[in-house]
């Protein structure tokens, strides 16, 4: 891997439950192949899965853009969808706008965005109602839990 790292894009379709989670799984495998620390792999796997599911559950379409550098992983999840009216509220554990149908599938516990924040070393969320949402996160090697 050179200094510019590895760049990958994973398109994600809203409502496509059959393939949901595939992008996160592929990203996990890439990190395993390049020998990233176990803690980073685990944290990226959890956060990227949550980001992918957010697009599948709530948006029309979106993509995960991933930049893997020698000492960090940068992920941008951008979607076209309803957006989040109150991003601060959405970051609270237990707050959810999920439908009964989504909850029946085991989602909508109001833990998604808090989980992403907990797993990552840096997070930024920007959203516009009726347009879409962009979540950016970074993981630094030797960040949280990487010694595990």
């Amino acid at each position, binding site marked *: 891997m050179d200094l510019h790292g590895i760049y990958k894009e994973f398109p994600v379709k809203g409502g496509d439950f*059959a393939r949901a989670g595939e992008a996160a*799984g592929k990203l996990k495998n890439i990190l395993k192949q390049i020998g990233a620390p*176990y803690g980073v792999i685990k944290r990226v*796997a959890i956060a990227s899965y949550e980001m992918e599911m957010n697009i599948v559950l709530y948006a029309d379409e979106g993509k995960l853009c991933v930049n893997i550098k020698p000492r960090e992983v940068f992920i941008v999840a951008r979607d076209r969808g309803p957006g989040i009216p109150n991003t601060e509220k959405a970051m609270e554990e237990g707050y959810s706008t999920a439908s009964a149908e989504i909850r029946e*599938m085991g989602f909508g*516990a109001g833990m998604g965005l808090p*989980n992403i924040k907990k797993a990552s070393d840096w997070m930024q969320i920007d959203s516009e109602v009726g347009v879409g949402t962009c979540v950016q996160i970074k993981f630094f090697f030797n960040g949280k839990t990487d010694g595990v």
Partner: protein
Amino acid sequence: MSRLITTDEIRKLLDASMLVNGEVKPKMGYEAICACDMISELLSIMNEKQRASREAILLTALTNTQVIRASETVDIHLVVFIRNKKPAPETIELARSLGITLMSTPFSMYKSCGILYGANMRDVNEGMEMH
């Protein structure tokens, strides 16, 4: 003290039927249990530092494919469905492709957890100080 327990011991204790005998097996055995029916809760529980190196199994009533995806995400390789729940063929196929073992027990969540607790398996929420 918790102790390590094999796939076959779990199957016998829970009187479970084996749906998929996955290829990925723990080096020593399973140590901890995660019992939940919410995907994000599973991810949140398994995100904690102290649990990262512990071999855990999942007990759940959810049978959709996302249970398998989420299990793979947090390195859980044995999923037990409670109350005789049987997953759809696509769930079984996905588990097989990822090497994850699937079982179905006739017991309820409460009874299943009680039996495994009695066999000295512990909750993933319990700290490492017990070792």
